[in-house]
């Protein structure tokens, strides 16, 4: 029993099976809408289907029990397999095969045989020098009629696979640490306000930080074509009402405070902005007022009270506008005053006739002009604390040398035998490699050339 479980987990069939199952499961996860993407995509589904998805844990699949089990099996598979195999690789790495084996030279291709016009004892040194320069752990053994050499290179190539597999385990470990001990949260802070309470994303609920974050200012810069260029929050981090750190937060430039990383994630506007309005009377006299939402002012001539109902940064894509609620003896009237009224009028000439409440001169004898609104923003911050990141980083970094060693190096073992024939020396060259037979062949050709040269020079 123990044996079969072990052999199951050390089998590569299981690996390939798991890789494919995880791939298929991930496909499913990209087709079935996932919970954290918001309810939006659930709308077209029938309630029964949603219930079925929920009970199979398909709506937050990548965190479901069964997906975690799959990843666990994969890790176990990797660990068992590696432990199982490692002693063999270690032996291959350490062991120096016996030097005078005949086997490498059986069925040797005639291309791998060379005759040097020298006595053996003269040739030995030259061959040995050459081999020592190009190979590691070069050994030599003499018998009465032959000299045998052994050399190798790239023995470390046996470990590439372990580096890859270990780095994958390190990444998985980092992901586990992150999901157990880390959190993701978000918070919206209006300009000028501060908070120490944030909403947790996955665990739901709230979290109290042991410091306070204040948004001093939020601003957006635009390109000429109107696309956003920069979102910037000026933040202060406070402890006991003292600012410990102040600085800007931009997209792609997170700020870390107390082990928590802050990201610029979104923004919006909140009530509390200001509008600059001027009021022209029929006689050309102009009065300027600065108002906030809910503020009122009086127009004495008509005994009217004007209250600011709304301040909009962009109303119906026609730019900034304010809503005036006008109460007078004539009755109540609502008037939208646009900043860009001249442009709007040019664009849609009959608009003011059709929608009289857009006419800034509707409440005679007054004419309202909106000069500017100053929005009050809130900044949307994403917070994250992930103690697993360094592990993930180490794993991701290690996998690259692992891949390079695995794919671009090979353990090449070389046997060279010299024997004397009628005053000349015959050189036999044989080699094996755990990978890349083409590269090995090229290397032998090069070596034979060098041997010929080394042997020929007097």
């Amino acid at each position, binding site marked *: 029993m123990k044996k079969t479980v072990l052999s199951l987990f050390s089998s590569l069939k299981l*690996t*390939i099976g798991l890789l494919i199952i995880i791939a298929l499961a991930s496909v499913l*996860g990209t087709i079935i809408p996932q919970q954290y993407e918001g309810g939006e*995509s659930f709308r077209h589904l029938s309630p029964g289907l949603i219930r079925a998805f929920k009970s199979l844990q398909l709506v937050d699949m990548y965190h479901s029990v069964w997906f975690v089990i799959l990843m666990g099996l994969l890790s176990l598979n990797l660990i068992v397999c590696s432990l199982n195999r490692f002693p063999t690789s270690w032996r291959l790495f350490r062991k120096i095969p016996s030097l005078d084996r005949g086997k490498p030279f059986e069925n040797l291709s005639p291309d791998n045989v060379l005759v040097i016009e020298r006595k053996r004892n003269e040739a030995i040194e030259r061959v040995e020098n050459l081999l020592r320069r190009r190979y590691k752990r070069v050994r030599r053994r003499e018998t009465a009629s032959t000299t045998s050499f052994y050399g190798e290179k790239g023995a470390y190539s046996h470990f590439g696979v372990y580096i890859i597999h270990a780095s994958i385990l390190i990444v998985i470990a980092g992901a586990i640490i992150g999901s157990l001990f880390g959190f993701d949260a978000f918070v919206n802070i209006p300009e000028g306000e501060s908070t120490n309470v944030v909403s947790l994303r996955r665990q739901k609920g709230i979290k109290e930080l042991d410091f306070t974050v204040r948004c001093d200012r939020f601003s957006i810069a635009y390109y000429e*074509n109107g*696309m956003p260029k920069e979102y910037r929050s000026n933040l202060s981090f406070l402890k006991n009402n003292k600012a410990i750190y102040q600085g800007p937060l931009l997209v792609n430039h*997170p700020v870390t405070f107390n082990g928590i990383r802050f990201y*610029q994630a979104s923004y919006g506007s909140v009530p509390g902005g200001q509008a600059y309005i001027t009021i022209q009377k029929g006689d050309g006299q102009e009065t300027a007022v600065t108002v906030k939402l809910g503020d009122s002012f009086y127009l004495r001539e008509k005994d009217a009270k004007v209250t600011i109902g709304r301040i909009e940064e962009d109303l119906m894509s026609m730019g900034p506008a304010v809503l005036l609620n006008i109460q007078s003896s004539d009755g109540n009237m609502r008037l939208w005053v646009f900043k860009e009224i001249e442009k709007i009028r040019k664009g849609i000439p009959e608009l003011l006739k059709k929608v009289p409440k857009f006419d800034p001169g509707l409440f005679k004898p007054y004419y309202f002009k909106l000069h500017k609104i100053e929005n009050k923003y809130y900044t949307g911050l*994403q917070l994250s604390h992930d103690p697993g990141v360094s592990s993930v980083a180490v794993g991701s970094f290690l996998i690259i040398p692992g891949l390079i060693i695995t794919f671009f190096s090979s353990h090449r073992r070389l046997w060279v035998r010299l024997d004397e024939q009628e005053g000349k020396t015959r050189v036999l060259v044989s080699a094996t490699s755990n990978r890349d037979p*083409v590269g090995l062949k090229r290397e032998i050709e090069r070596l034979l050339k060098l041997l010929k040269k080394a042997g020929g020079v007097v």
Partner: protein
Amino acid sequence: MIINATILSWVTFVYFASAMFYTFRMVTGKEFWGPLGSFVALVGLIAQTLALILRWVESYKLGIGHAPLSNLYESLIFFAWTIVLLYLIIEWRIKTRNLGAFVVPFAFLAMAYASFSPHVSNRIQPLIPALQSNWLISHVVTCFFGYAAFTIACGLGLMYLLKGLGEGQSSRPFLRYLPDREILDELSYQSVVIGFIFLTLGIITGSVWAYSAWGSYWSWDPKETWSLITWLIYAAMLHSRFVRGWRGKRMAIMSIIGFASVLFTYFGVNYLPGLHSYF
């Protein structure tokens, strides 16, 4: 129309011509067409490189300078560029023109889609804040080298299967020009290895970017998930070769499945719920 886009739409035809010359060589068996195909492909590559540099310079003139790697149009162009570059390097290294007819058409298709699809805008746009990152550039570059290598592996897989169909009818010049199956298999494997390493780098640089822009190195969004799926498919493929010794037809089929997954990661993902949102 902007000058770089004009050059690039001409390059589309240049690659088409090159693909045709490589194909003529196979069909007619006349060696003459081969060097012509290579020459034309090289001309196209040089013109495309110049156009990319022009586009880069132009973006600085507009005051919104950034590497031309930021939208679908630019990524398609870069995809074609990496395919031709890698292909010409391989042609030069292994000294055979037999792959051209199966690889260069992919570059042509990418260019044609970029230049002539009404859904792909060739305007130089400024970078929104989320895209203003050097990690993004390394992400795009590594991913597309990976994709290009997988494209070549897929072309080789197709050649392998085609060669298999014609087994025993070696008199057809078309099939005779295909390299031996062992060579195709080996080349395809090597392309997959290159692609796999670049894809791994691409996923890593992508997560570094996500980590600095969104606060999470991995959030299972469809694009990320599909790149992982692609990675898993090729990992399964490499394991079956390494440990179980699978060769030949199965590998050819796997390289085509893997490429389908690459294409889905690149294009198909846009049709799924949830998105790689850019703030």
